[in-house]
């Protein structure tokens, strides 16, 4: 139950806060070549504990390749990934991972899908199920514990996928366009929901998107990537106050950042 503690008042974990930021994830000089194609070229990025980093770029800029390498699913040609001081290059299962596809197992209920990681590793215990039920109840799915995924809407399924990722217990979570398949209204609701979950759970999030508004609304920092070869063009800090409400979407800082990013993406 430790992870359900409320961290919303803890401003110190934000970058530039009173406590010194601790580097949680360090991506060091990653390059990936597929034959003659360079998918990633010398990508380096340090992510602070508890930080929300958005990786923004058009398709083909190597966002998903970067995630596959960080998660350990595929190998980098050179460079390494350091998590909490340990080299985790090519070691799958060290970070949480969530995709645009919700990847629900249709034969497992909401509860069964949330406890999937436990079932896969050691068998879900009553404690796992109780924690999953608490999590679901806390984020508005308490009524749906025994529902099968096909009976839920796309937005609800993504929430279940998010809770499954949280329940897996990894401190760093990679979210690869998790709301890409949702309609605009649902997506906005899900973004606010995600910020609330992130605030409550004290996790470090890397979030891939091609939606500029989404990146600015969510992130502490935005990593802008450009394609051919995939590399980091610029890293921008988002100095919008938290918690963020919908009003920030029309603020001057927001619009200014958006203009700056658009110049990078479509120059």
């Amino acid at each position, binding site marked *: 139950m430790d992870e359900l503690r409320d961290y919303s008042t803890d401003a110190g974990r934000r970058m530039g806060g009173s406590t010194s930021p601790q580097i949680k994830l360090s991506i060091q000089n990653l390059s990936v070549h597929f034959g003659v194609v360079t998918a990633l070229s010398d990508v380096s990025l340090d992510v602070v504990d508890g930080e929300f980093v958005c990786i923004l770029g058009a398709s083909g800029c190597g966002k998903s390749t970067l995630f596959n390498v960080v998660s350990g699913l595929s190998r980098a040609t050179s460079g390494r990934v350091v998590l909490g001081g340990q080299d985790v290059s090519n070691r*799958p299962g060290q970070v949480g991972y969530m995709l645009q596809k919700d990847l629900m*197992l249709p034969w497992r209920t909401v509860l069964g899908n949330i*406890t999937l990681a*436990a079932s896969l*590793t050691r068998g879900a215990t009553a404690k796992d*199920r109780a924690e999953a039920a608490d999590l679901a109840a806390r984020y508005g799915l308490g009524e749906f514990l025994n529902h099968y995924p096909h009976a839920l809407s796309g937005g609800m399924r993504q929430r279940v996928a998010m809770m499954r990722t949280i329940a897996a217990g990894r401190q760093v979570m990679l979210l690869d366009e998790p709301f890409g398949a949702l309609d605009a209204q649902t997506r906005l609701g899900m973004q606010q929901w995600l910020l609330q979950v992130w605030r409550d759970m004290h996790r470090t999030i890397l979030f891939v998107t091609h939606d500029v508004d989404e990146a600015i609304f969510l992130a502490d920092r935005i990593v802008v990537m450009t394609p051919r070869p995939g590399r980091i063009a610029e890293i921008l800090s988002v100095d919008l106050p938290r918690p963020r409400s919908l009003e920030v979407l029309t603020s001057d800082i927001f619009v200014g950042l958006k203009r700056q990013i658009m110049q990078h993406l479509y120059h």
Partner: protein
Amino acid sequence: MKTRFKTAVTPFMIWVAAMVLILIGWQLVVWLTGLPAYVIPPPAVAFGNLFDNWPQLQRLTGQTLYETAIGYVLGAVIGFLLALAMGQIRIVQRLVMPALIISQAVPVVAIAAPLVIIFGFGLMPKLLIVAWIVFFPVVVNVLDGLASVDRDMLNLARLMGGSGLRAFAIVKLPACIGPLFSGLKIGATYAVTGAVIGEWTASSKQGLGTYLLTANAQMNTAGVYAAMLLLTVIGVGSFLLVLGLEIFMTPWRCRSTSPAWMQAQRTSPAKSLA
């Protein structure tokens, strides 16, 4: 409760209506063509023969049902295990697939003769013929089920630390259950055909198939129809039985929430392996 009652009764009524329609059609053919009863007996005559010879027919039905059921289970189990092995081990699939296709290209009737030569008259060749027919749709469907599992899902399972038997049982095996039942349903209607062919070629013991042949030779057309009716009942009955089992085994396909008995298991602290 009312809607639940309705959903249970409606398909039943449709079945009754369909059977009544078949009987009416049968009777109409008899009336319109004016053919004598030794060519096409009217339904009443066929059913009359069935009831008159019931004690004997009951015994024969039992025998044919026995061959069908055992052969069916044998074929289904072999088919399922073979498909799992083929799905998991690539080289097995490559080697076995041509043999499988060849096995189904050989006419079943032609297989009967060598089986009798090997095993002699008796139960074994009959079981093998039924199993031979049943196992193919099972293998093909289960293989499709295994191949249909999303690659990203397998990657996710790997990232969550799932490996080996556990990941297989949680992510892959349940994906085969739906396709397995598709194969089992096809097999259920074919199995009785296998039993009849088996009886025609390999039987030392009387069954409905042998009765049908005897009745035919004796110009006992009503007897032929009575046997045919009973064989149909076995086929339809097996199909419905498998269908019922499927609905029970795959609740996620037709319900929005898990059945109560599963929920009880989920929340019970004693069960640790979900």
